[in-house]
């Protein structure tokens, strides 16, 4: 179905009857896709089209470039948290955490257990809210708007929990080097979180019904945007996209951080490598995230401080970090999100380099996968790769 090729004679005939709307006299034309197309989220692709087929795609990012890496060099270490989290808007805790982990490693801090537990919960909550956001975008792209309406409403539950925990709705500015900024607001919050997890577990069945089991979804995604294992590794594809081609690489498993070694979860792996496989892997991981949160809640927050005790923290603006460099990465919903921080011993980082998964998914991989795709499949490929343009631009 998906690989339907219009026969040459038919195309000639269509051309004779002026059925091509855009260029009547020629077969190929250029199509500017984005930046205000909802699927692209501020990112444009120049598509060289042959009728309905994409001949060549050229990615044109940069609409969101703010020069984070330069800005981070001008601001003190702690302050950078308020800046770097803007790299990944749907799950802003990921840049916070990777930066904090890297700084923790350079300083050599032993982050308190309670802070680690809170960070882990926050990361998982961020993953879940990002999944909800992804369902919404993906549902809208394939025309199943109902799923999007539900997902956006369920995401609000997490937004509320974040608001109570951190004081911010989308930008939490919560995880800082050495711990977290606030303690858990009380047992009521933990109960609410558990309720939300339970609630979402029930709702997963509804999502299955309306989106993941839906024959429309299968028709739209099966066989679209296929990549193989070798291609994926050479192109540094990570996250669910890599697991959908049969490589069981998950940062939480292979380079574990926080409490993940103690948590019991499954890593879904499929072999097909098409959009459908990517969707199904994501769906399974969403379910696993709910189990992970449940286990974390069963574990309960360890007692103790939520911020490391260090006399150097008295003068926060001029807090100095010893010279050194560190790389930390976590598994975000989009893939392997990493930060490379270099310090030269002053109170400002010498260099911060963020590695967003979309740097590979959104440029070379996308350009390759779009070759030969139909125009209607472009948003599907974009959404199943879960491309997030701020990662590319930064």
């Amino acid at each position, binding site marked *: 179905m998906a690989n339907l090729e219009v026969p040459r004679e038919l195309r000639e005939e269509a051309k004779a009857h002026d059925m091509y709307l855009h260029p009547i006299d020629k077969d190929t034309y250029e199509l500017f896709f984005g930046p205000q197309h909802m699927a692209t989220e501020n990112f444009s692709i120049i598509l060289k089209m042959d009728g309905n087929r994409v001949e060549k795609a050229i990615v044109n990012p940069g609409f969101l470039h703010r020069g984070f890496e330069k800005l981070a060099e001008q601001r003190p270490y702690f302050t*950078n948290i308020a800046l770097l989290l803007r790299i990944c808007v749907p799950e802003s805790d990921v840049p916070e955490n990777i930066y904090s982990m890297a700084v923790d490693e350079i300083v050599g801090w032993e982050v308190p257990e309670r802070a680690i537990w809170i960070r882990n919960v926050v990361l998982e909550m961020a993953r879940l809210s990002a999944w909800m956001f992804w369902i919404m975008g993906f549902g809208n792209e394939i025309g199943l708007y109902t799923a999007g309406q539900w997902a956006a409403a369920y995401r609000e539950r997490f937004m509320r929990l974040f608001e109570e925990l951190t004081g911010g709705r989308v*930008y939490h500015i919560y995880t800082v080097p050495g711990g977290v900024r*606030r303690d858990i607001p009380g047992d009521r919050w933990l109960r609410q979180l558990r309720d939300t997890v339970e609630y979402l577990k029930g709702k997963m069945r509804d999502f299955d*019904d*309306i989106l993941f*089991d839906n024959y429309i979804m299968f028709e739209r995604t099966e066989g679209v945007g296929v990549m193989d294992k070798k291609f994926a590794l050479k192109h540094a594809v990570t996250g669910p996209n890599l697991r959908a081609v049969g490589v069981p690489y998950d940062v939480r498993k292979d380079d574990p951080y926080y409490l993940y070694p103690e948590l019991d*979860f499954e*890593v*879904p792996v499929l072999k097909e490598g098409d959009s459908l496989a990517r969707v199904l892997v994501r769906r399974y991981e969403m379910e696993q995230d709910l189990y992970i949160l449940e286990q974390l809640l069963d574990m309960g927050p360890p007692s103790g401080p939520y911020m490391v005790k260090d006399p150097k923290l008295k003068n926060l*603006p001029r807090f100095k970090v010893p010279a050194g460099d560190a790389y930390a990465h976590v598994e975000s919903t989009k893939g392997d999100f990493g930060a490379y921080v270099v310090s030269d011993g002053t109170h400002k980082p010498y260099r911060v380099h963020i590695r967003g998964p979309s740097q590979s998914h959104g440029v070379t991989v996308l350009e390759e996968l779009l070759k030969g795709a139909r125009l209607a499949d472009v948003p599907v490929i974009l959404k199943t790769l879960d491309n997030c343009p701020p990662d590319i631009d930064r």
Partner: protein
Amino acid sequence: MKMESVEKPKVRIVGEEKVKLKKSFVKPWMGIKYLFKKPVTIKIPFEKIEPAPKYRGFHTLDWKKCIGCNFCGQICPARAIEMTWLEVDGKMEKRPHPKVDYGRCTFCQFCVDVCPTGALGFTENFYLTTGGLEEDLELFNWVPIHPDKVREMNEKFGDYRFPVVKIEKKADGTYVYHLRDGDKIEFKILGYGLRPPKKPASAKPATAQEKKEVSKPAEKKEEPRAEPEKAAEKPSGE
């Protein structure tokens, strides 16, 4: 940490037998049951939603407690805070107070965290809607007012609006804050920066801490300056 003995592998890799789903023509119709559920919509003009307690909203400042140490200005990632020398009722305040610019503020409240005396605080207020003209946008730059005053107004009006409705700027540097409940706060801005403005009066208010900061040959030091008048060249609407 907890448990050390790990026998069974904690991370399991599962393949298609568990991950794959079957496509279905019937199941999507199950969504119809949502027709009979209560909607999640918050009907905004008629219904209200409260922000969480300790939501990071607009700042408050206890002018009595503020010692003008500029910690808040140093930590601010957006350079939104500038120390301001005020004159209230003809008397100059001993210490400069932070002036917060909501055209830059990111509401991270690191400034509140580092405030050594707890003078700077924040409330849950988050509504600030103005027109787009130059003079309307003046409202986005203010010296925060006392928390009690803000709370009082929140209780009176029952919402979380910005406490000031209009900032009136007079030619001689006097600012009048017209509060929502009709009160006015009037003061004069003498200058900006860490060091007191040129006025010879009131000795040297700079603390030892500040002096250290000032003398430090850090890159691009704060220049004390008297308000430069910006050429108002913008078009004002009609």
